[in-house]
């Protein structure tokens, strides 16, 4: 694998004595949808916080040759790391287009800041299509619904052209169809980028994960393919419970055809935005 990878080695995060992450190592490569799972409080979000510079950490997190730890947040972003938040945060007063335009700004020369936006960047248009937000272009982001905001966040990552996407529970609160669409979007995105997803939706994980790392109490409990992890009794005990085997969720009964049909973005948009039409 010649492309740059994200390599986390022996990551430690401590909060005034409490060890939230105690020596976690994992890696993620372009072309895969990497999952990070584990019980509540296992340290997943904290790992992402550490990689993105939000929490002070020791150990190492490298993107290719670049060490990420110890840099300020915005410098890490400029190296190509993008993330979403467990609770969606977008610029409420700005329109969807403006949100995306700002996200796209990282690649522009600073002098372009002083000029007026003319036209819509192709990358923005594409991201709008991908996430089905095209109809909401002029909507202030503050009045989007929960799920729409999450899509907007993903779209912002896309236009940001991040090399690494760290997604903290990206499908929480989405309906099954929307989860499917999002998962497929992530699969497409992952072709050229590193995608790391934190999720508790096991059906979602089963469908889209290539490799999985399980955290527990700040340590790696297990890792491997979906099947390997699911079969691990330790994982079943602390995390999966019966969900490892049973299929309480509707995902199992989704006809493949329906999923495919739903995957095309414009229809998805039509189903979510109302009043407008």
């Amino acid at each position, binding site marked *: 694998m010649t492309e740059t990878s994200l390599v986390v080695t022996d990551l430690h995060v401590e909060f005034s004595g409490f060890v939230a992450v105690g020596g976690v190592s994992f890696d993620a490569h372009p072309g895969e949808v990497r999952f990070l799972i584990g019980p509540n409080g296992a340290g997943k979000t904290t790992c992402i*916080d550490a990689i993105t510079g939000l929490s002070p950490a020791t150990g190492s997190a490298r993107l290719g040759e670049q060490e990420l730890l110890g840099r300020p947040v915005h410098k890490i972003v400029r190296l190509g790391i993008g993330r979403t*938040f467990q*609770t969606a*945060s977008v610029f409420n007063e700005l329109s969807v287009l403006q949100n995306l335009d700002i996200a796209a700004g990282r690649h522009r020369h600073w002098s372009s800041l002083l000029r007026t936006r003319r036209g819509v960047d192709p990358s923005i248009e594409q991201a709008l299509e991908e996430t089905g937000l095209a109809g909401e272009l002029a909507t202030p982001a503050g009045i989007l619904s929960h799920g729409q905001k999450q899509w907007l966040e993903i779209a912002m990552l896309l236009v940001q052209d991040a090399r690494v996407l760290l997604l903290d529970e990206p499908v929480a609160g989405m309906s099954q169809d929307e989860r499917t669409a999002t998962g497929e979007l992530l699969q497409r995105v992952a072709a050229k980028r590193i995608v790391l997803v934190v999720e508790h939706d096991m059906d979602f994980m089963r469908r889209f994960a290539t490799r999985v790392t399980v955290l527990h109490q700040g340590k790696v409990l297990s890792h491997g393919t979906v099947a390997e992890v699911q079969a691990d009794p330790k994982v079943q005990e602390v995390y999966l419970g019966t969900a490892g085997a049973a299929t309480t969720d509707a995902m199992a009964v989704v006809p493949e055809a329906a999923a495919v049909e739903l995957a095309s973005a414009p229809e998805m948009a039509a189903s979510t935005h109302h009043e407008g039409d």
Partner: protein
Amino acid sequence: MDALIPPLLNGSAQGALLLLAALGLSLTFGQMGVINMAHGEFLMIGAFTAYLVQQVIGASDLSIPVALPVAFAVAGLLGLLLEVSIIQWMYRRPLDTLLVTVGVSLILQQAALQIFPSQGVPVEKPGWLDGQLTILGYDWPLRQVFTIVLATVCVAALAAWLKYTSFGRRIRATVQNRDLAEVAGISTRTVDRLTFFIGSGLAGVAGVAASLVGGTNSQMGAQYIIPAFLVVAAGGIGQLRGTIVAALAVGVGLSCFAYWTTGSLAQVLAFILVIVFLQLRPQGLFTVRTRSLV
């Protein structure tokens, strides 16, 4: 020693007065997030109340003890009126409360100027505050000791109220997330009103203490408001012990600087030091952090 003890004694009294002025703010600003620029005028109202009490019962030994609860009630009720009429509509934009209350403070100042004699009114010190206490061979005016005792009592009462009743929790919950507090069964309106009543009432008490220090006139509140805010900010928003430490530090600092340099420069130095301190510790002395992003 001569250069240290007197400013220390003076300064702790000055700090105590500042603490009294800041105590109400640590509730309304620190806990509720309301930036009440009219707090100084509530203090002024407390001082005028002391005057009126003296007019009614004479400047007897009793006048100040009587004036304290009356000033608390009067300033508190005015604060309540302010909350009900204006502040209650503004909890979702705390920064704007600053501007609204600037308007209130202008109006209260002008009203005081027109209602009372323009040169101010005299509030007399009761006889039992005449004299000094001798500490380490230095005279400590009883009036200063009284201010310290008063501040201590108020702080203790407030701390106990916040700690031993569930009210402290409810105030903090209400400020953090009104909707959530409401659906957690808290009557946020009651919490708001009561907090504002007590915060403003404490300003009234501070006003009685201030009336024994300087002039009682329409401008007096303006002297206290910015230092009081600085003290609350430097102490750490919502941190009672921070407010106490900061008030004493500023009081002693002011006094020392005034002792070593000049009164005017002392003001400047004290301000600059607090500003620099806040720059170094933007969350104040005692910090509370959360992970929430925005």
